[in-house]
Each structure stands twice: as structure tokens, then as C-alpha cells.
């Protein structure tokens, strides 16, 4: 798998489209076990990201994603703002100086992103957070190489799997056992991130 700077820009734009489209569902998921703003937070943040990167030109993919990250950090707030922001900030470090990402380079970015989420939020696999999507996606990429299609499938499966879990981090954790039976909103927004990747990659390839 190879991702050009153009495709990487499309990815950011497509994430925005997906967040707008699923805004209500994201907020409904958050309302069930959190405070009901995840859709608004994501929609607000990625709308700004799209505005920012759409007509901008960047020296490299690292610079582009640094801009994505700082926009998220300064526009989202809540828990998801610093988490997604830190994820893309760490990835942008890994992508610094590159105008094309091969499977290995892309995976390095995702690995750095997961590290960022872990350090920032101190959650672990199974805590019913976005990490429950990001960690399996990373693991698979590390083992089998980056594959956008597969990443989207894994993300979907793992987001679904958060339904049965009891939340240990974030607002949903306050509900204890009552958090069971609902999908984690951050896991679903993470699924959308990887679905967006699969879509733009596929369109580019065809």
C-alpha cells in the first residue's frame, strides 16, 4: 500500500465528511453513556480541519498532519480533542519530510499515534475507549503490513465489540456496569477514521 500526499489530504477531508454524516449517531452513542457531545465535538473539529487543509499546500505529509493535529487540539476540547490531536501530532512526527507513505511508514505513524493516545489518556486495551479500535488496527498493520481495507474491517469489528464491555476510562466509566450494552462513541468515530482511509485509498486505486 502506498499513500500519496494527495490521498492523505483526501483522507482528512473524507474523515470530515463522515463525521458530519454520522454526527447525530455519535452524539446519541455518547448520550447513552456519556454527555452527548461526541458528534458535535468531532463535527466541529474536523470541519475546521477540512477548512484548514483543503486549499493549503504543504511541504510534506508531516507538515499537513501537524496542521490537522493542532487544529483538532485547538478546536475540539473535551476528551476526544487532545486524544485525536495527540494521535495525529505523533503520527505527523513520524511522517515528517515524506511526500509519500509506504506501508511501513504509514504503520509507523499509526504506531506513534497509538502511543500518543495511550500516554495522554492512560487507558488500556479493553477499557471501552477509542483505543479498543486503534490498538487492534495497529497490531494488524505491524503483523501483516498496512491494508486500508482490512483496517476498516477490523475497526468496524472492534467498535462493535465495545458494546459488551464495561467502561474503565472516560465519562462512560462512571456508569460502571450500566455502560454495558452500548457502543463506545470514540470507538465508533475511530471506525469512521479508518473507513475514510479505505474509501479514499480505494477510489485512488481505481
Amino acid at each position: 500500500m502506498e499513500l500519496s500526499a494527495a490521498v492523505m489530504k483526501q483522507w482528512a477531508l473524507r474523515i470530515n465528511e463522515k463525521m458530519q454524516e454520522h454526527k447525530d449517531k455519535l452524539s446519541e452513542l455518547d448520550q447513552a453513556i456519556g454527555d452527548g457531545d461526541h458528534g458535535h465535538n468531532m463535527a466541529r473539529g474536523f470541519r475546521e480541519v477540512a477548512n484548514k487543509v483543503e486549499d493549503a499546500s504543504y511541504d510534506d505529509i508531516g507538515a499537513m498532519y501537524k496542521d490537522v493535529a493542532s487544529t483538532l487540539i485547538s478546536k475540539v476540547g473535551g476528551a476526544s480533542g487532545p486524544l485525536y490531536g495527540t494521535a495525529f501530532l505523533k503520527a505527523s512526527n513520524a511522517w515528517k519530510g515524506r511526500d509519500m507513505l509506504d506501508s511501513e511508514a504509514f504503520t509507523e505513524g499509526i504506531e506513534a499515534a497509538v502511543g500518543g493516545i495511550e500516554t495522554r489518556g492512560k487507558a488500556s486495551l479493553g477499557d471501552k475507549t477509542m483505543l479498543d479500535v486503534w490498538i487492534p488496527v495497529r497490531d494488524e498493520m505491524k503483523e501483516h503490513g498496512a491494508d486500508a481495507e482490512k483496517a476498516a474491517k477490523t475497526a468496524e469489528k472492534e467498535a462493535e465489540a465495545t458494546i459488551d464491555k464495561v467502561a474503565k476510562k472516560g465519562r462512560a466509566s462512571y456508569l460502571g456496569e450500566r455502560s454495558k450494552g452500548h457502543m463506545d462513541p470514540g470507538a465508533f468515530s475511530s471506525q469512521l477514521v479508518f473507513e475514510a482511509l479505505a474509501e479514499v485509498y480505494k477510489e485512488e486505486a481505481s
Partner: protein
Amino acid sequence: MKKLINGVDQIVSEMVEGLVAAHPDKLRLIENTNVIVRADAPVQGKVALISGGGSGHEPAHAGYVGEGLLDAAVSGEVFTSPTPDQVLEAIKAVDSGSGVLLIVKNYSGDVMNFDMAADLAEAEDITVKQVVIRDDVAISNPDDRRGVAGTTLVHMIAGAAAAEGKSLDEVEAIAQGVADNVRSMGVSLSPCTVPASGKPGFTLDENEMEIGTGIHGEQGVERRELMQADAVTEELVQHVLDDMHLNDGTDVALMINGQGATPLMELYIVARKAIQLLKDRGIHVKKTFVGEYMTSLEMTGCSVTILNLDEERKRLLLSGRE
């Protein structure tokens, strides 16, 4: 959703504009932000205090900006932690060189955003300390506890300490002392509606209540049959005391906090019982607060907060601002 607003997107900016317009002699808004600072900030030689978080908790946090209290408050979207750049703006506006203390409620979002802001400030050579408030005993694991109404007692006591000219380390230690000795527990009779979503956070039957609710319109830890005020109060007070191990004769402050739509009349009925219960247990209530200090939009219900007072906290609280 029936609200006196103009549009969901303008709520926070219009609210902070209104607050500053109402008190132009005392407050100032930092342009292009939702940061409210004391009109005379930075106050030379004084440690600066900053609090903040999502909006919807009024009068917290911007209502506590003023002499003897906070130097700045940072307002995020409704129930959404503010971003690090806004917190950084606040830090830069209030630091007089004596350092800044961030008063942070223990939510993933608040902790992370304030943390990032502190990092950014340190990079600009401003000394920043943080105290994280976790007073909500509804959550059993102390590390995971939310910061709720007890946070406002930190504003008051640390605010009084800073006004006395204490150093950053001293103010931090005092704030941490409050944080370590304050406990709260809440109950809700009806939910609130986050404007952006337009729908109530949960629904309750006419005879149900949620015990152990936080301040973001989320459900509590348990749904129960509605009880009379005295029984509800006993439940809340007992839960808080069980976590405190107070000796006979201990001095405390008591706060009966309304969640936004509870008539003051009902809060006084709760206060009456809470004071009786503490008296029966040989605990001395030195100061009682009854009213709205940390709300959840138009939620109905209340929380009980008890703070163990050592001599210093007692002196600062009784001499300070509310």
C-alpha cells in the same frame, strides 16, 4: 428543548459577553476567546488562580472570577472541556511572575487539556502548578472520582490564600488540602438537555430519581424510587460521611448545591436535615452554603458537599469571599 438562546453555536460566546457586559468594572474578556479575567489582571505579586471546564455549570466557573477568588476562568462548549490554547491564553493574561495554579476537575478531557496547556506555558517559562479535584464519592475508586461542587470551595479557600500573598507552593498545598478533604454526592430528579443535542440526557418516571449523578447531565450510579427530602438527604450525607472518617467534634463546611432548576426552597429543606444529621453525629458545621454553586444546566436535584476544616482552611473560608 425550550431555552432562552439565539442559536446553539453562539451560546457560550454570548454568555461570556453578557457576563462581562454586566460587570465591566470587575471582569474583562480576552478577545477572540471565551476566557474571562479580572479587570485588573495580572495582579502584581499575587499567585494567579485559573479554573474552567465545559460551560453549563454557571455560576462556575466565570462567576467565581474576582477579588479573593479566581483570576481567570476558561469556558469550553457546553459540558466540553476547553482547549489548551484557550487555557494558555488565560495563563498568559493572569501571570504576574508569581506563578499560576490551575484548578482542574477530574475528567479525562479537563485533565488532558489543562495538562497540555501547562506544558505550553512551561515552554514559555511560566511556572504552572495544578490541583485536580475528585470529590464525588458516587464513584468508588478515589482515582476515578469526578470533580463536582466541592471545586468551588477550592476557589474560595485557595483564592483567599492567594489574596493574602502566599507563594505558589503554599497556595498549591492549601488547594490540595481542600481537594483531599472535600467529598460530595448528588441526586437528580430530572435531566437536562445539552443544547447541541436538543434531547434530555435520560428520562425518569414521575416516581424515579438518579442517585450519584455528576454535573454533565449523565445518569447516576443507580436509579431509585423517589424518596422524601429527609430520606434523600440522609442517604447523601451518610454516603459522604462514610468516606470521611470524621472524629467527634470535627469542624466542617457544608454545601447544599442546586443543580440548576431546583427551587431554593427545596435546598433549604435539604439543608435543615443535613445540619440536623451532622449535629446528631457530633460534627460542628462552621459554615453552610445553600444555593447554586455548580450546576448542570436545568437539571433538578442537589448535591451535598462536606469539607473537613483544619484551622487554616477554617480561617481562610470564614474570612474569604463566596
